């Protein structure tokens, strides 16, 4: 447990006392006439599923301050106590509400032998019926158990809506320089009908293979990749995370997410004051910590309507204002002035984009630019499936990323979506805010970690064909 047994005991005590307070509140008779049973059940259901207790339990478990099973047991205990008092359905007693909080966050073992090869080329592939599609190959990633090729299917000509854009997997072949065919080992993993995804070779080529060649049958175009000459981990700079604990990093992570909401003028932070209070009471952040002050100051300044209760504590002098980090100010200033619309479209594959941190490999596949958003596509290799997506807090230790362009402008790269892969990997989309307004060939990427922050300079290759 982060913080040790004493912190865990303090957090557990806090949650148990919070559960008692919630129970008292639920049992307080309403001022008006007797509430209908359905209304009482709804109120109690909110308490145990979306109230202060599950929110605090989830945050503390995600931070590793308290064992997730203990946190779940406390939430379940409140549900049971409400059920036997007629405030919840009795089925709650036989269908516990486990897994309301995040499971443990073990430090995963870093997979060995991971290589990433930027490709950035297009192959025209032909289906059995003669139809053609362009297959844009962004990069190749090799692990011990698989070869994954990041691809995007693109129509060579304008197509009607009825024409489905699919990968002609039945005709596609991959062979190596030793004559081995991997046609039977191929699968294509996409999601939600998206044209981009991963082409898998489940039984990867043995070490020593010089090249892999992809085509869709005799006489069709071919594309050759070299799996051996993979990128070494990108040259990275490491900086200790300093005295900040996981609680403060969580608050900074939330601040990054708030900044990422600036384009939409949205702020997900209606309970930030409550969260900070919970972290303080449970000992997950020290009273008067600068991260609380930073977050409160940001809420006040950004005008997103987020963290109203936190801003109130700021106004009351309960939390001290804090200087905002330079990168936050850079983002805020960008939105304070009019900018021409970003004209970038397409996909820029990243080279030498293999980064290792806290037992994960992060492979920056590339940068996508669409009319309304710009983002980094990142492959996470390790055990990302052990970190549920429920509220994103379980990922707060590694996101958002911060990106600095060559012009000195900072961008926050916040989690925007994920696509589960096979066991041991996941593709995440990071929204880049503000967007780049012109092509750049290099980005400085800063990734938070548990004990260190990592910085790396990542090259980009613009000029890929538009989709």
């Amino acid at each position, binding site marked *: 447990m982060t913080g040790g047994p004493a912190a865990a005991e303090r957090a557990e005590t806090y949650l148990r006392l919070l559960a008692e*307070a919630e129970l008292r509140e639920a049992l307080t008779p309403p001022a008006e006439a007797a509430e209908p049973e359905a209304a009482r059940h709804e109120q109690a259901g909110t308490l145990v599923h979306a109230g202060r207790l599950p929110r605090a339990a989830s945050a503390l478990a995600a931070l590793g301050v308290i064992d997730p099973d203990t946190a779940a047991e406390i939430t379940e*205990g409140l549900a*049971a106590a409400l059920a036997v008092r007629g405030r919840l359905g009795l089925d709650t007693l036989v269908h516990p509400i486990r897994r309301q909080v995040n499971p443990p966050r073990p430090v995963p073992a870093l997979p060995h032998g991971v290589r990433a090869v930027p490709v950035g080329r297009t192959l025209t592939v032909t289906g059995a019926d003669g139809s053609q599609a362009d297959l844009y190959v962004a990069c190749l990633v090799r692990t011990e158990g698989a070869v994954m090729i990041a691809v995007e299917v693109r129509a060579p000509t304008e197509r009607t809506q009825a024409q489905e854009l699919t990968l002609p997997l039945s005709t596609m072949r991959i062979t190596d320089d030793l004559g081995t065919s991997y046609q039977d080992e191929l699968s294509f993993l996409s999601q939600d009908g998206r044209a981009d995804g991963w082409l898998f070779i489940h039984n990867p080529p043995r070490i020593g293979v010089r090249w892999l060649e992809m085509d869709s049958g005799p006489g069709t175009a071919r594309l050759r990749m070299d799996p051996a000459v993979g990128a070494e981990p990108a040259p990275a700079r490491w900086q200790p995370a300093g005295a900040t604990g996981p609680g403060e990093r969580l608050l900074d992570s939330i601040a990054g997410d708030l900044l990422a909401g600036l384009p939409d003028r949205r702020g997900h932070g209606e309970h930030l004051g409550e969260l900070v209070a919970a972290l303080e009471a449970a000992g997950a952040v020290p009273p008067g910590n600068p991260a609380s002050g930073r977050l409160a100051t940001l809420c006040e300044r950004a005008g997103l309507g987020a963290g109203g209760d936190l801003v109130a504590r700021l106004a009351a002098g309960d939390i001290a204002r804090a200087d905002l980090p330079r990168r936050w100010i850079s983002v805020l200033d960008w939105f304070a002035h009019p900018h021409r619309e970003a004209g970038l479209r397409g996909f820029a594959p990243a080279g030498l984009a293999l980064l290792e941190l806290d037992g994960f490999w992060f492979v920056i596949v590339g940068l996508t630019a669409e009319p309304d958003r710009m983002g980094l596509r990142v492959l996470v290799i390790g055990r990302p499936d052990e970190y549920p997506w429920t509220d994103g807090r379980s990922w707060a230790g590694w996101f958002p990323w911060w990106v600095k362009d060559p012009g000195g402008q900072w961008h926050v790269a916040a989690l925007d979506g994920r696509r589960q892969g096979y066991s041991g990997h996941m593709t995440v989309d990071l929204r880049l805010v503000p967007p780049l307004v012109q092509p750049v060939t290099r980005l400085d990427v800063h990734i938070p970690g548990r004990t260190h922050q990592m910085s790396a300079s990542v090259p980009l290759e613009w000029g890929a064909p538009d989709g």
Partner: protein
Amino acid sequence: VTGLDGAGQAGQQPPWWAALPPAEMEITCGQARHTIRWADGELVLPAHPDAEAELILGALGGDKCECTELAAVWRRHHDDLALLALGPRSAADEIGITWDEISTVSSSKWAFGLQGPAVSARDVRRALTTTGLAYSPLTGQWAAPPGGVPESGRLELLTLLALGPAFGMRLAATVAAAWSGAARAADRAANRPALTAALASRFALAAGAWAGMEAGQLTASLHEGPGWGSLEHTGQAASGPASSYPEGGLANGAYPDAGWPEGGWLDGKFQRGGLRAWLAQVWAAGLTVVEGHLVLAVQAARWPAAEVLALRGLGGTPVTLQVRAADPAAGDAARSGGSRWQVAG
């Protein structure tokens, strides 16, 4: 102590059940209605003088009856902290769950027959088996297999709570007393959050109403040491005490008489003895507040009389009071969660 038959000897605490009257009820047992009775800290089965032998015989293939099963479940949960999290916070905190409802929600349908349809002992045994419990003739206990059967444990607790408030309060007192011994110091340390919450939730309701403070303004904590503990009024949470009522001060009367400032927090610091002295003896017996006095400990008792240590009001000095159950003959205490008490003489 006069009138208490020597239950409170100098330097000795009375038994934790001394201020609790007996309680009893009838349940369906086989084809008959049998009385189960709680007295002097134990659940007894007048219709089954050798319940242990019956339970073992049942495990060896004979029918087990509901009474003995219930006693086994009671014994199994005599120190179950989950009971304190689920069970009553005060005598007014009515838990209305019934065995019929438990049978409805439980696929195993192994509730005992109180007011609902009688369940045969064979059904009970089958249900216990399906919940994964196994009987050990060596220990005479039903026990969960390795890995535990949490749902069966919860169903057992519900079954006990469905016995009604009188038994619910007594079982809570049993659990509190079981955790208060010196031999369980290590267990207490490992379960301090649950014990603190169990104590604080009940203390907050009782003392909050007495002090005119919101329950959220009251805190309670556990400390290892003799005596019942101390009560402090603090200017703000977790800050230094503004007024203190340490146990050691009882002898020299070093209590301020000035009223406590408005607001702030009231913090009860309960020593290990306080877990038993307050939860088991004071709270479970319905002695928390008697005619405007906050009762801190029972010094001697034999129901319906008790000698208690109590505070008259904020800023007052703890005094020794003789109290009596208001109407012991009415049987309220046996049916409900606690007695109504009044200052004697």
